[in-house]
């Protein structure tokens, strides 16, 4: 187990390294921060000075090594726009994002799991078919389309809810709904197939034959087993809590991490973008690691690692 964790941890570090390197190279090969941050018609000497000041004129490999050297010392760089430490900027935005992402996550779980379980227990009835169609609609529709439609209907059309900004808690309603529906749809579909698979197993019949009431069979015997594969999907959702908000925050002008990412990339505000990516990648990798550990906790077969003995060949 220890060995397993250590290996996973090292793999996680490798992933981070690859993500950062990739981003670094792409960002520095396209666009010119000097021109984007200072206006395009600034005098060439000013642009040159800017570039020199930020070390952008050095060869790529030198910049690359320099970046990682700084990283190792805890220096995440500075924003080229307002000269403040990049990571501080990023961290300051996290509460805003979480105030959308966390409620959305809870909603995803509630809606997704209950819809999935219900559909599985009422397989092939009209309600099952209806839920499946809804979930297909839910995960095929891009979130910005959904967001914009909701804005059109509820903000512009009906005027019930505000369309942008984060002034009051009512401002959070539409973005949270938008953020949660796609994930709920995926989770519903997944939970449904996991449940169907489990309900067809022999031990469910044993539980019924024992005399347990149906409710107990479902809640106590079926669901814990269906949770096992569903956990991967949920883990992935946790990992993308921060990254997933990008589109929604842009649609609703919500001042969170996602919006910061969009603006920083547009401006090639390199250190900020990289700090953001580091944050997102770390969240993803940790979430995956958590899922792996949880798997071992929930599924005793994984824990022991060996299949049952004594069955006939």
């Amino acid at each position, binding site marked *: 187990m220890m060995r397993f964790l250590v290996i996973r941890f090292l793999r996680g570090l490798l992933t981070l390294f690859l993500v950062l390197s990739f981003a670094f190279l792409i960002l520095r090969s396209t666009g010119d921060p000097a021109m984007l941050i200072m206006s395009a018609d600034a005098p060439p000497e000013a642009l040159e000075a800017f570039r020199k000041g930020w070390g952008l004129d050095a060869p790529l490999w030198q910049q690359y090594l320099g970046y990682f050297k700084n990283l190792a010392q805890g220096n995440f760089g500075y924003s080229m726009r307002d000269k403040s430490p990049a990571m501080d900027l990023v961290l300051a935005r996290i509460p805003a994002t979480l105030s959308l992402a966390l409620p959305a996550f809870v909603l995803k779980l509630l809606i997704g799991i209950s819809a999935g379980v219900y559909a599985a227990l009422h397989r092939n009835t009209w309600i099952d078919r209806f839920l499946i169609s809804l979930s297909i609609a839910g995960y095929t529709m891009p979130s910005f389309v959904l967001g914009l439609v909701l804005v059109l209907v509820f903000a512009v059309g009906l005027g019930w809810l505000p369309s942008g900004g984060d002034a009051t808690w009512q401002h959070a309603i539409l973005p949270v709904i938008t953020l949660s529906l796609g994930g709920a749809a995926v989770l519903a579909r997944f939970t449904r197939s996991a449940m169907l698979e489990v309900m067809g197993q*022999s031990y469910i019949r044993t539980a019924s034959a024992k*005399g*347990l009431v149906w409710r107990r069979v479902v809640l106590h015997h079926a669901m814990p*087993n269906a949770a096992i594969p569903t956990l991967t999907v949920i883990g992935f959702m946790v990992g993308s809590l921060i990254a997933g908000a990008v589109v929604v925050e842009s649609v609703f002008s919500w001042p969170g991490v996602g919006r910061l990412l969009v603006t920083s990339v547009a401006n090639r505000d390199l250190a900020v973008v990289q700090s953001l990516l580091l944050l997102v990648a770390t969240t993803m990798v940790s979430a995956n690691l958590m899922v792996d550990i949880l798997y071992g906790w*929930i599924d005793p*077969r994984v824990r022991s690692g060996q299949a049952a003995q004594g069955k006939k060949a």
Partner: protein
Amino acid sequence: MTELVTQQPHHSAPQVLVSLRGLTVSFGSGASQVQVLHGLDLEVHAGESLGMVGESGCGKSVTWLAALGLLGANAQVQGEFRLAGERFDGLSDKALSLIRGRRIAMIFQDPASALNPVHRIGQQLVEAVSLHKGLQGEAARAQAVRLLDQVHIPNARQRFDAYPHELSGGMNQRVMIAMALAGEPDLLIADEPTTALDATIQAQILDLLSEVRRDQGMAMVLISHDLSVIAQECSRVMVMYAGRAAEIAVTDNLFRTAKHPYTQGLLSCVPDVASPQKRLTAIPGQVPEAGRLPKGCSFEPRCAQSMAQCSGLVPMLSSVALDHQVACFLATP
């Protein structure tokens, strides 16, 4: 000298524990509906061991799954079922759950997959004990350990916290039996309990079932495709073919004087360790599919002794001797 199996049934008028009358089971609906059981009648007497034998598609397992309401929404079940005189067909699932485990218990074929993989075996046992005996906490746990001892699981106390995949197939089947005993049922249905197990383990489990049955005074229905297992364990046997009963008799009579051509065919096509080696007399053809039974007797196409009327009418079960019924025009003209 070969000795015939002689297990005596009750000679005093047998007390009927469970009776199933006109059991009919179909799956699916509309155009794709398939009937798998065609009006089966059977009785289980208190304390006896009844064997149900037949090949795939004969309906031997479906019979009891249907009676206990374990078939699911896709199945249509009809018939009159009685337990100690009281009807239990058509009951709600909740009402049936009071019978399951408590009056009639059932164990299944592959013990490794029949136990919940994420619960410890002790936990699963305690669940049964609490449900049927109302015990909680320490008392429930103690009773569960006692049950594990009863089924001869060594180191019961330590094994209590094991998961099913940590135990062998034989051990898992013992746990299943212990769970079935938790409610002290009047009838235990054992559906192919040893088919997935090795030969030496099979012998252990069958011995255990006999022992348990005697100790509890329980009736048992043993379902198997293996005639020799049935011959050893059961006092009465029912042979099934394509969803109907072909022959029912006291074990001794069935094997010594089988009247139904199918039974006769089965007896001569199975190699037996106590008989001299000789060429097997195979039954030609194969079992018909449930939805495509021949008109008349289902066995007629494969029967070497079929007569004109066999392809027109379905023979009904009738007595040919004391405690011996056959569904065949040849046997009962």
